[in-house]
């Protein structure tokens, strides 16, 4: 599909003719329709699109948390449930209680589950991996801090560290900068660019202007999916999308659902 995939190499992520809808067949319009996507190993893919366009749904299909109605999803050539161990996931919404009594390092250690012994506590190697993951996101000195006392940006770094502790080959991030200010946003993306030297990264964002400075390819998702190389993105496409160079300044501009590059017909309303 993509020219970036070397002949014979297994793509890190491959979606073929994927269709998905919530609430069972026929009751609601599909969230995703005829989605084809291949992510090569080492790529840094930005997944953009309007709210309700299906970005988080696509990640959950890759993770095997949802099953497609039609089509296939593969992670390194395997079904998601088997390929899952190779994925590190940073969810959009916190999936735990904000006041849970746990230290930063204990939360990160949970990334070792599935790769450590089954009975009793974590091994010494697991602690070493967790501390390395925290060091990678510049949070090593806060290892013993209670998780509940962190700021939004610090919490995002810890969640990335938890995903890194899984020793993944692909990192999936869902709106990692939704709740942080612009300065933290750039430092998080600098960190992701750093991590991209060793990992394949897929990052979901509603902010195409901002991420196009970091990612190697942008996929626009609004029920259907269209890919752009970032080099192509810098030309007329961005002008069409946002009207001139305004995207650099207006970091929180949303994609207009009626935009010419959102090929799904009709508005991408909330699902």
């Amino acid at each position: 599909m993509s020219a970036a995939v070397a002949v014979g190499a297994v793509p890190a992520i491959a979606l073929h003719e994927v269709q998905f809808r919530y609430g069972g067949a026929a009751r609601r319009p599909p969230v995703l329709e005829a989605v084809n996507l291949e992510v090569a190993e080492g790529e840094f893919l930005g997944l953009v699109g309007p709210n309700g366009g299906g970005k988080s749904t696509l990640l959950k299909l890759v993770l095997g948390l949802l099953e497609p109605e039609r089509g296939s999803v593969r992670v390194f050539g395997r079904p998601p449930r088997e390929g899952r161990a190779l994925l590190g996931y940073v969810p959009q919404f916190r999936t735990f209680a904000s006041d849970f009594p746990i230290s930063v390092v204990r939360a990160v250690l949970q990334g070792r589950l599935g790769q450590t012994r089954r009975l009793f506590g974590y091994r010494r190697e697991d602690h070493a991996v967790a501390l390395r993951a925290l060091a990678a996101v510049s949070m090593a000195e806060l290892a013993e801090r209670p998780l509940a006392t962190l700021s939004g940006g610090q919490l995002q770094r810890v969640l990335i560290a938890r995903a890194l502790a899984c020793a993944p080959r692909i990192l999936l991030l869902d709106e990692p900068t939704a709740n942080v200010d612009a300065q933290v946003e750039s430092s998080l993306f600098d960190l992701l660019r750093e991590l991209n030297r060793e990992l394949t990264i897929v990052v979901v964002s509603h902010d195409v202007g901002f991420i196009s400075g970091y990612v190697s390819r942008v996929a626009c998702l609004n029920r259907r999916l269209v890919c752009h190389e970032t080099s192509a993105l810098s030309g007329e496409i961005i002008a069409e999308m946002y009207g001139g160079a305004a995207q650099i300044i207006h970091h929180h501009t949303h994609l207009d659902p009626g935009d010419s590059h959102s090929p799904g017909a009709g508005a991408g309303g909330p699902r």
Partner: protein
Amino acid sequence: MMGDFVAALAAQGFLQHALAAGLLASVGCGVMGPFVVVKRITFLAGGIAHAVLGGMGVAAYLGGSPLLGALIAALAAALMIGAVRLRASEREDTLIGALWSVGMAVGILFIARTPGYNVDLMSALFGNILMVTGDHLRLMVALDLLLLIVVAAFYKQLLAVAFDEEFARLRGVRVTVFYLLLLCLIAITVVLLIQVVGLILVIALLTLPAAVAAQYVNSLSRMMLIAVLLGALICTGGLALSYGPDLPAGATIILLAGGVYLLSTLAGRVLRRG
């Protein structure tokens, strides 16, 4: 007053049994209470506790051991509630409420029909720590050991399921199995506490020491340690306070637990403001 209690404790076997039962109950509620508090399933634990009366009533009617009936009913209630919650289909709170009341109704019907009325309804509801037998203590030791071994062996998984179920599932933890295991361990704890404070008062002893601990520490394991020690102090103190004026021991223990929780919460507020 304390002197009287200590003297009586030295002389009276039933008081020694009562104190031992209080301490053994503290271990169970201290280890499992933190899970109930952080997972916010107090209402669920309450449903299990009250459904237990049905099992006790049926067991008494059939001439079996009420405690065995309690254990079976507690585990059955835990599995039923857990199964419904994991399907995420029916309204979990409605089912808990139904089990709560229906379990008690079944218990009361069967106890009323039991010839000789050999189950003391009041002690099932409010506990009777002064009537604890040696057999009962041995059973409590066994259940405590079971809880400690299982929690130590699967601490990682239980913590992960309590903290973030979605992430645990993605890491290959069998979330369904461990969630049901957690509920079964809570059911065992409830049975452990019934003789001490009764099934109506169980919830306070299960959650209050853990809730106080949560105000001071930031890890589940430390919460457990503090909750065990606090539970032991509260059970011993309640027993001692109730002995002189001949008050019901279970109710005194619960009032003491409530008082400690209130004081700790208020002290925390004042300290944070100051």
